[in-house]
């Protein structure tokens, strides 16, 4: 693995800016005018695309702020001529609905432990793969790479039976464990590749000082590995928060997360549009906050985790 220039891929760094200007000093005036005009067209096109990309989400937000009757009667864009339609009534009803509030908490109770556990278990294993010697290490890591793409479908039926036998079926713990297990290949892969890049001198120095492997792990690897651990944490958080299929199979009754509760309402889509729009917005606002707060780490996770 290399440490090449992936930082340029972060949206925050925006290195692309002035390249045209600095890179082409010898162009004649005519071609410069053409370039300028072309650049103007490109700007306009990109603005239009950006609006196009935003409109569906804005539609959801506006729909969630209109009453069911208004939504049944006309499209959300009518709100621009009739701003009085805006109401937070849907959100109030959502917060008064014990099932939805409960499933929102279930989402939190599933996502937080599943994220922490993946980070901890992956970090331990990644350290072993990166810096400890044991027989079959390279071979075992190839297995981890292979497991990266295994579809969760291959495990649903047996794990459902297993959970049924040991009383985990329908529980939050069962959903969490499944997410952790299927998050591990990616977590180990990501962290191991990062840990391997930590300078050997730092580890050797700690060993010279008589530190054991656990101490090295806690005092050297974890602090230095924080950027990669953050990437993994964000990625896993979003993956679990947004999951529908795993929860659909394993979370029953009072353990259902928000995605499952909302999905059940989509069968009668138009009559539930008020609840659905507000609920969907509630379910996407948390990942969006996480995304905008930590987008650098998120993008790093995506860059490192492609081919999952």
């Amino acid at each position, binding site marked *: 693995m290399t440490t090449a220039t992936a930082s340029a891929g972060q949206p925050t760094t925006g290195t692309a800016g002035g390249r045209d200007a600095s890179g082409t000093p010898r162009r004649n005036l005519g071609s410069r005018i053409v370039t300028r005009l072309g650049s103007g067209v490109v700007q306009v096109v990109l603005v239009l695309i950006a609006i196009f990309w935003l409109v569906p989400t804005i539609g959801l937000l506006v729909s969630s702020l209109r009453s069911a009757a208004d939504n049944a009667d006309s499209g959300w864009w009518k709100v621009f001529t009739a701003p009085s339609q805006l109401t937070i009534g849907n959100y109030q009803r959502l917060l008064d609905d014990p099932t939805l509030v409960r499933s929102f908490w279930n989402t939190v109770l599933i996502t937080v432990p599943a994220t922490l556990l993946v980070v901890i278990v992956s970090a*331990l294993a990644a350290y072993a793969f990166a810096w400890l010697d044991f027989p079959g290490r390279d071979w075992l890591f190839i297995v981890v790479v292979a497991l990266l793409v295994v579809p969760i479908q291959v495990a649903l039926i047996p794990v459902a039976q297993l959970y049924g036998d040991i009383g985990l079926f329908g529980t939050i713990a069962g959903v969490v464990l499944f997410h952790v297990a299927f998050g591990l290949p990616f977590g180990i892969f990501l962290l191991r590749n990062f840990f391997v890049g930590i300078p050997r001198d730092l580890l050797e120095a700690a060993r010279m000082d008589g530190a054991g492997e656990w101490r090295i792990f806690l005092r050297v690897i974890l602090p*230095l590995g924080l950027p990669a651990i953050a990437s993994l944490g964000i990625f896993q958080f979003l993956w679990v928060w947004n999951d529908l299929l795993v929860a659909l199979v394993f979370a029953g009754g009072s353990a259902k997360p928000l995605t499952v509760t909302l999905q059940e309402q989509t069968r009668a889509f138009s009559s539930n549009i008020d609840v659905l729009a507000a609920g969907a917005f509630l379910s996407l606002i948390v990942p969006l906050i996480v995304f905008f707060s930590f987008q650098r780490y998120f993008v790093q996770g995506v*860059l490192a985790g492609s081919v999952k």
Partner: protein
Amino acid sequence: MSEMATGGGAAAVAPSTETPSSTRPDTTGPGAPPAQDRRWFTSWTALTFLLPALILLLVIVVYPLLYTVWRSLYNSLGDSFIGLSNYKTMFTSDATLTAIKNNAIWVLIAPVVVTAIGLVFAVLLERVRWSTAFKLVVFMPMAISMLAAGIIFRLVYDADPGRGLLNAAVVGVHDVVKPSSHYPNARPRDPRLLAAAPGGGYQTTRTFGSGDTALIGLLAVQPQDIPSGAQKAAEPTPGQGISGTVWFDFTRGGGGTPNQIDPSEQGLPDIRVEAVQNGSVAATATTDDQGRFTLSGLSDGQYQLRLPASNFGAPFRGADWLGPTLATWSIISAYVWMWAGFAMVLIAAGLAAISREALEAARVDGATEWQVFRRVTVPLLSPVLLVVLVTLVINVLKIFDLVFVLAPPSSQDDATVLALEMWRASFGGANDQGLGSALAIFLFILVLPAMIFNIRRFRRDQG
């Protein structure tokens, strides 16, 4: 430290960019332990570090995978061995064949479209200064759930142009490009003058010749169907050919005289009028804003006047995007909306790593921007494009949530995919976990090439 965070990512994106290995720690092993007992010690330590991961992976990933292979050879109850029967069912039953066909469409279309759009965005972004903002906007859908995206696009795709954004836009554009007026429930004021025509619409019971005028009054016109440009009806002006007026023969508040144009009555614009002789159309005209028309260029003789059915048909309402025929394509479009940002960000990272000299050299040699893109940029990017494509293919093969949420129950049978059929067979009511297991294993076999691609790429990067 921060550029190291993406160490794996850089390799995933651009495996060819190598740094000199001398600056790197030796990845093939830690510092050689001095003695044999030290080696045993680290092996045991390694095991304790690995144990939680190994247990979870064995119990929840590896063992279930093997069990599912075995289970796929048993019947729905799991009590009798039926060999490859489930696989035979999979390739013969209508539901699974539809799923396989749809998955093929998904795999052939979605990754290529997403990658192409991501490539175009990434290249265009090199020319603007606000690329960060654009990236955030397009990348944002990746952070939200497919459930939320499904609900978002259920709103966009709503078939009613009054509520669904896409149909509202399509109908709006259609009506500008091809304006037409329709009076769906309109009927004649005087059934003795105007009778139902064969093939729909209405035609006059009497005939008209050149110089005649015709007054054609209609009833039951909905106010919202009358175009905003319509004016008060005017008397026809006799002249060459047959002239006449089509109007809404109804005075609001009562008091009008039937079959006469009263002062407050509306003309009906854009109505097609045909002159018919012996069953064939000799001339056509369209009414103006006051409802008047003139059929000219007729030879002598008597003609019936016909208002064809097209005047009375329902207006254009857009398409049923989530109906059985279009659902798969509409859902793929929603997927493109979600994932274009992913392709864009990876490709932009790859672009940033391309040597500027190569591009400048081509430009100095007089290559046009298109030639630079086609001959230099794309070939240099091909490793990144391959990684993006493979990632998307794997992702698309497993697609479930978006189809499950976006396709309404009435079109799920037509839009279904393998992962959805697997769920329906195993948990969604069909209760056939033998078939469900076979579908899961089929999915697994489909991702095997990607697994091999990953392993080879990993080994090459290590070597």
